[in-house]
């Protein structure tokens, strides 16, 4: 027999699941491993941390990430609480980050300081800053979009 009480409960659960699964979408039916990894990382970060969720809900930007030593990249299209991950670089990007795989992983290990700014004075931060100076890490669109980059870094950081 159908139990109306249980039915309501089940329906609520389905709605929650549907709402949660809408955080990150993949533009391609076959997202690359890199696209899935970044999308999965951002989704896990945002779900686990209310401050990251606030940043995620406020961010509107098109962020390209190109990994130079595997010749693969993604475009992250943030749209105020939703993220669509594209395989490869899409046009009209706000910021484009180009670096080797190890550096891209270092970016997600940047600590966030008390003012919400990435910490560049510890070991990981210094190594990232040095790579930026040596052009091993290139960020197109950095100067006019520093606030956006900081917000992306906060969402991306696992620290």
């Amino acid at each position, binding site marked *: 027999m159908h139990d109306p009480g249980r039915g309501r409960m089940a329906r609520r659960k389905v709605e929650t699941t549907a709402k949660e699964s809408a955080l990150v979408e993949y533009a391609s039916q076959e997202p*690359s*491993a*890199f696209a899935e*990894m970044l999308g999965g*990382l951002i989704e896990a*970060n945002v779900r686990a941390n209310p401050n990251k969720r606030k940043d995620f809900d406020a961010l509107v930007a098109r962020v390209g990430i190109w*990994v130079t*030593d595997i010749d693969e990249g993604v475009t992250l299209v943030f749209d105020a609480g939703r993220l669509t991950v594209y395989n490869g670089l899409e046009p009209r990007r706000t910021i484009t980050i180009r670096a080797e*795989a190890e550096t891209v*992983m270092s970016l997600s290990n940047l600590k966030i300081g008390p003012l919400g700014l990435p910490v560049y004075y510890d070991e990981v931060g210094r190594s990232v800053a040095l790579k930026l100076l040596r052009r091993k890490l290139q960020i197109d669109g950095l100067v006019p979009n520093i606030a956006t980059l900081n917000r992306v870094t906060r969402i991306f950081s696992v620290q």
Partner: protein
Amino acid sequence: MAVKAFSSDWAKQFKDEVNKSSVYKSAGKGWKWTVGLVVEAEPDKNFPESRGVVMDLFDGEARDITVGPASDAQKCDFVITAPYTRWKQVAMKELDATKGMLQGKLKLKGDLPTIVRYTKASQEMTECTTRVAVEWPDER
């Protein structure tokens, strides 16, 4: 002396290498999850059955590393899966494990933020595998 790839002797030497590494001891501080490596069978490479490497890692130390059926490794908190040839490439430094994961050559299951937080530790684990002299079944 070389040991057979993914054998119990290999697991023992791998564990010794991990525990000798001061880099791992420091980078793995705070780690408290099990890691399983699934080595998928490639009969044409003389590796006829999949195997699982179960690593009990805790706070910068390898408490135990064992080799058994793939199903044991699949029960771990983090599971990395790849065919035999890929693992051989990793152990011979022909494939960087981080790049391999980004390219989908090594498939990772587990909490992504945690594994990313320990990138340095996982890179050192890979280094440790390269220090074990191995007799590869497809080279016999």
